[in-house]
């Protein structure tokens, strides 16, 4: 158990509303990630963080923003949700800085439905 929790676990919202998903870790790891999983696409990186207030974009970052004000929390915000953002969102943490031994450990996921 990597000590990662995500909240909420399920959310239904309407198009155009803002949504914030929270990832919380108890391991004090520097690296945190947000992925989305969609049928036929596997997992795709949205944003990641390499420290407090240090974030960068991933493959599918359009329409999403992130913030990390504390080591343990990484927030993903959809400023104005669209139906294309209906997905399962996973947070992950990494104990190393990438390259070799870059095992990432995942949270349980948040299922988001945008109507």
């Amino acid at each position, binding site marked *: 158990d990597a000590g*990662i929790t995500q909240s909420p676990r399920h959310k239904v919202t309407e198009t155009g509303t803002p949504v914030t998903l929270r990832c919380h870790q108890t391991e004090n790891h520097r*690296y945190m*990630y947000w992925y989305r999983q969609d049928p*036929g*696409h*596997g*997992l*795709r*990186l949205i944003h*990641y963080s*390499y420290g407090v207030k240090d974030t*960068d974009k*991933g*493959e599918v970052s359009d329409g999403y923003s992130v913030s990390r004000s504390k080591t343990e929390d990484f927030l993903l915000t959809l400023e104005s949700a669209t139906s294309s953002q209906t997905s399962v969102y*996973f947070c*992950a943490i*990494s104990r190393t*800085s*990438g*390259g*070799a*031994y*870059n*095992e*990432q*450990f*995942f*949270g*349980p*996921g948040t299922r988001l439905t945008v109507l």
Partner: protein
Amino acid sequence: DQQVKQNSPSLSVQEGRISILNCDYTNSTFDYFLWYKKYPAEGPTFLISISSIKDKNEDGRFTVFLNKSAKHLSLHIVPSQPGDSAVYFCAASAGTALIFGKGTTLSVSS
């Protein structure tokens, strides 16, 4: 263009037999490869990994083989058990990020 490909969406195997899941990649700069297992309604769990300087890594019933010249890796599960039924993702390390394949659904029947 997909950098990590899992060309078989599904695989069915009988209990006790070998399961072989395959993965191809296009970027020769990838230096670390990982396999994850995912059950429905759960997050992916790390299974096994291999560095590009090795060609085999073994952990219990799970063995990963890497063929750098062919840009191909495979996961062998021996013997397969019904509890192994899940979606398996291959991933490659590209700097800080991991790049995932689309997954292969393994079904092990008893």
